[in-house]
């Protein structure tokens, strides 16, 4: 299709869209609030985006809203919601259908538990290490005679010697 033909087609489509209509706009798409919330916990499996199905905007697509795959997933969730399935059951069913990648965050079981534990455990270990270091420093500081400790604004002999050496070198 040539560029002019494309423009003409677009313009014709727009003219059709511009036909006067009732002033009440229709909200879209119509999925239940719970389906939308659950949709935010599963990934859109279209392969073309990294969005959650419940908030798929599909950048670069022909429509910046839920792509057909996201809509299909939301409709499926909605059907399960209507049948009275629990959140866990709906998410499990999504995992069965698409594999563990479908969950937007790691589950809290098996190896995936490490994803949640480590960001807490490692800082705690680091905190303990810092605490121990500080404790040792203070302990050593208390054992050092006050005269040997550095004082603010009163540089030690050692420091003055070093400054002298550095000045000499540069």
């Amino acid at each position, binding site marked *: 299709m040539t560029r002019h033909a494309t423009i003409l087609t677009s313009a014709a489509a*727009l003219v059709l869209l511009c036909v006067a209509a009732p002033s009440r706009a229709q909200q879209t798409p119509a999925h239940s609030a719970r389906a939308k919330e659950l949709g935010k916990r599963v990934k859109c499996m279209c392969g073309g985006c990294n969005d959650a199905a419940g*908030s798929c905007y599909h950048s670069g697509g022909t429509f910046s809203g839920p792509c057909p795959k996201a809509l299909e997933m939301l409709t499926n969730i909605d059907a399960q919601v209507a049948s009275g399935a629990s959140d866990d059951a709906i998410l499990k069913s999504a995992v069965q259908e698409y*594999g563990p990648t479908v969950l937007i965050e790691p589950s809290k079981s098996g190896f995936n538990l490490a*994803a949640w534990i480590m960001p807490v455990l490692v800082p705690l270990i*680091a905190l303990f290490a810092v605490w121990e270091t500080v404790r040792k420093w203070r302990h050593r500081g208390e054992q050092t005679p006050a005269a040997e400790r550095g*004082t603010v604004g009163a540089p030690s002999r050692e420091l003055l010697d070093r400054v002298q050496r*550095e000045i000499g070198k540069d």
Partner: protein
Amino acid sequence: MDIAGSFALLLAFSVAVYAFLAGITGIITRRTLLTKSAQNAGMAVFLLVTFTVGALEYFFFTDNFSLAYVAEHSNRALPGVYKFTALWAGQEGSLLWWSWLLSAYAFLVLFLNRKKHPELMPYVGVVIAGVQIFFLTLNNFVANAFRVLGAPDANGVMRVAQLADGHGLTPLLQYPEMVIHPPMLYLGYTGFTIPFAFALAALLGRYPGEKWIHITRRWTMVAWCFQTVGILLGAHWAYAMLGWGGYWEWDPVENASLLPWITGTAFLHSVMMQEKRGMMKIWNVWLVFTTFMLCILGTLLTRSGAVNSVHAFAQSSIGTWFIAFLAIVLVVCVLAYWKNRDYLHSDNELDSLVSRESSFLFNNLILLAACFAVLWGTLFPVLSEWVVGSKISVGAPFFDKVNVPIAMFLLFLTGVGPLLAWRKTSTDALKRNFMWPSIGGLLAGVVAFAFGDRQFYPLICLILSVFVTLTIFSEFYRGARVIAARENVNLLTAVGELTMRNTRRYGGYVIHFGMVMIFIGIAGSAFNKDVQQEMRVGQSMSIGQYMILCQNFDSLANDNFQSQRATLEVFKGRKSLMMLYPERRFFPASGETETMVAIRTEPLRDLYVVYAGQDPQDGNPVIHAFLNPLVKWIWFGGIVVVLGTGLAMLPNRRTAIVLAGAHEKSWDDAVPAGTPAREISAVTRGANAND
């Protein structure tokens, strides 16, 4: 021209190798002439890479589609500014751009220090040349931007071929922020090479004292500032271009840019411990090493396709090169540290947990915890695939849950840390410094709660933001009051004088205030609303206090794209505020469609409108409107951070020393009685010793 460009690139590689080898030989044999020659070679690399970049730009501007890179990332109809920026649109060109920025930094460092630090600079030159060799190896032998297109002629002999037109620049990159976002981010990434080079050089050469830190302080701040601007511009681009109403999605590539920024921030804080008290030398050296390695790791993630990302370059084998380089850097750093670890012995030790030193320790701990959490979440899908054989997703909800509490604690320390004295803070000083800010914060929390804010983290964020802001303003106020009284000037003049006497300290406060603004802006996202509706001409939709009336749909076209545009009138009550024109642009060269979001921005909220296109089911046009509170605070906060960084880099105007009596009590508390220091104190509390 392609041969000239290729040749200059190869020559740059050879000259970098010479700079590296001659530098090492000069250091070992202590021949000054050789080390000078190596440094001159280091500067020459910049000229050669500049010529190479110029040659590639020449191909873009002359629409020479015989070069594969130009054909893949440009087309005749592409506007001139995007022809220029197409340089860094793909793997090969962006790596060349990286090399150019690195060589520019190297040139500046070597030139400005050519007559200074004769014992340190040869090592610095060698380290920088080593990094340059790696990137120039990629530019020459792995991802060469001067690859020509070939096609067999009638006799089956391969000839240079030229396409009639290129494939065009991806529409996502055809946006004003994309003109400056990648250079800013790359200036950050490459800029961290300079403190890395100085740290490694000081360690290898056992350079005495903290001088390397003084030399690199401004370089580190420059790199950090560019990284900050780069990250924020990227966030703004995502906000204004992608059309999903947000600005940060915890995408692996976004995370990759955040990691060195976090460790760089930690370094900028902990470095003061080394300057003032001679402490944390090992920590600082490793923070710089880690920051540089995270820059390389970030590049590896972006370019190897190891993790899924909307931003990533095409999957390629280039990751192996980065892994090898990362391994080499790690081995060199470990060996250099192991051999010279006695050189990094602390001069002082901590006296009290309630002190500036301990606040820096905790600040570093929290920043590193945030860095680990982001890195862990980013790499966990890869780890999971290795361990259990299945790749899982780690999306935004995970990062939010893990990082928000860490960020709150960090915000708390932002307020507490600067008000603690070095060595030890007395209980009286604690009460005096923190009572009013704490009351102010809690009061703000009560008011927000009374007005209906029941969300935990936004409420905590508000309380802490007010607390930190009050601590910052009280610091300015108390310092300025002393100056105003002594020099008989008004408070505003005294604030200026105070700031200029200790730019680093007060610039730091300005940066903290900017960060508070950013935190407030981010907290606003908890109250986002959105409505998506089919809308035809004459129909309306409501969101918050706004009503949007559809006035028209039309189409526009130029050589580069065809656009479908909605004309929407925005009302607040009955008052018409403005027209918004959200668009969808179709780019024939690449066959892709992108949104152009229309935003009405106010200090307290953004009305963000996307023309989503025609509903795939019924063909009706769909408008998606978002009401995003406080987003503007993020961008203004970023500007304040940049201004604060600029301020902190300025030299102090002067330091006025006066007799005792002018000092404040918290400083008094920090100094043991009977020390000579007590006899004098700086008017600007800590101008000399209390940064």
